[in-house]
């Protein structure tokens, strides 16, 4: 273990952090909407120096065989090499795949998008919703930043029209049918204490983390643990903290 990790751990054991925050403090959160002209919806979200842009694109395609009257939602994430000195070009890595899949589950399981309303012709044609997560700068807590950006972008997406077998992207009249605002909160355990909104430095020193997606009604709709093991009682503590913070963050989406 290097000196920096040890320093973070020592601070954490007393509930302190090297940037002066307390356990439950977030960094400054900045949310910008409609930042990408040609996307159906988009948002740029920053938590301190962590920055993510999410763009929503729509198209028309075939539904899945087992859901002939449902639109299709797909989420991808690219940890662009611009975001971090360690990233390299190549196929999406484990971490970006996990990030996309955790954000996907939070949105999918909460039934945020009303996919039934995206059916054009049963069994033949439905709207496809592509949600692409682009990491611009990586300074920790990427799952929460990406999830917040995705939910914000979806809430501000406008649907193109479909006329005579052609998608008209110039004419956007209706909003994308969305409901709910699932919020994903990742809680990290460092030296036996629990922290939200960890920086990259903190993540290098952390023992484990649990990401929890929480619906407007307080129900949880997705969970993903990473890192080392946890006791049941620790899991409960994490859920309580996540539930508390989700309420705060939900207010930021409009």
């Amino acid at each position, binding site marked *: 273990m290097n000196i920096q990790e040890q320093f973070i751990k020592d601070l954490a054991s007393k509930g302190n952090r090297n940037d002066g925050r307390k356990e439950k403090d977030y960094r400054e959160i900045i949310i910008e909407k409609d930042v990408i002209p040609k996307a159906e919806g988009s948002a740029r979200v920053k938590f301190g120096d962590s920055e993510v842009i999410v763009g929503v694109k729509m198209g028309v395609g075939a539904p899945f065989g087992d859901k002939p009257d449902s639109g299709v939602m797909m989420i991808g994430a690219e940890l662009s090499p611009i975001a971090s000195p360690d990233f390299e070009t190549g196929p999406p890595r484990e971490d970006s795949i996990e990030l996309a899949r955790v954000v996907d589950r939070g949105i999918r399981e909460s039934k945020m998008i009303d996919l039934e309303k995206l059916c054009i012709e049963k069994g033949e044609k439905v709207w496809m919703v592509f949600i692409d997560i682009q990491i611009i700068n990586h300074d920790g807590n990427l799952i929460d930043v990406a999830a917040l950006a995705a939910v914000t972008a979806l809430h501000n997406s406008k649907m193109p029209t479909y006329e005579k077998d052609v998608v008209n992207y110039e004419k956007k009249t209706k909003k994308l049918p969305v409901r709910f605002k699932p919020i994903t909160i990742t809680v990290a355990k460092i030296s036996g204490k629990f922290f939200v909104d960890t920086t990259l430095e903190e993540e290098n020193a952390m023992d484990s983390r649990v990401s929890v997606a929480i619906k407007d009604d307080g129900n949880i709709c997705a969970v993903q643990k990473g890192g080392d*093991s946890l006791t049941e009682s620790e899991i409960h503590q994490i859920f309580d903290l996540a539930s508390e913070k989700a309420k705060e963050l939900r207010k930021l989406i409009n």
Partner: protein
Amino acid sequence: MVKREDGRKPDEMRPIEIKAGVIKNADGSAMVKFGKTIAIAAVYGPRAMHPRRMQEPDRTVLRCRYSMVPFSTTDRCRPGPSRRSTEISKVTREALEPALFLDEIPKTVIDVFIDVIAADAGTRTTGINAASVALADAGIPMRDLVASVAAGKIGKEVMVDLAGKEEEETSCDVPIAYMPRSKQVTLLQMDGDIPVKDFNDVLKMATKSCEQIYKKQKEALGERWIK
């Protein structure tokens, strides 16, 4: 108490079969069946890590590769890694790591390969059970065995080891891995829609079932040594 599709009680797992030492070439191996789900795990190592740039100077690296064979599912699945299998490989590795002493032999690697040869729900948990026994079978020092199972809730009933159509009916699917001796949860995932307080019941039933699996894992290792 409601009856389940296949007649099981809510807290009853499917018939379980565990066999250690099923692959001669491997340093350790195991086959685990949960009903119609079958996973085979093989362990190779610790051995020198190649390529060298992936070596860790002060510890052994654990690599896991979870894979479903093409004929394991009703609709043939294409061979090769998918986004799903990449994620499961990652959480499987994290489910096993807490049980191992990885700072013993620097610059080495332990490879854990899991092939799901028949799939009927619970493939990742069955794979973790097999991998855990295979690691022990390889003689790799372990803090504890890792047992794994999923639980959920259908209607008002918490149920363990969902199978068949139960996967579609459950309001949540919570796969966990658990080290019974230290009472540590090493895998925790969830899909669904459930109040926090119900989650606790689901988690409780899963950890209780892991204790039963744990016994069967130890029996299988015992049989292996007697042979």
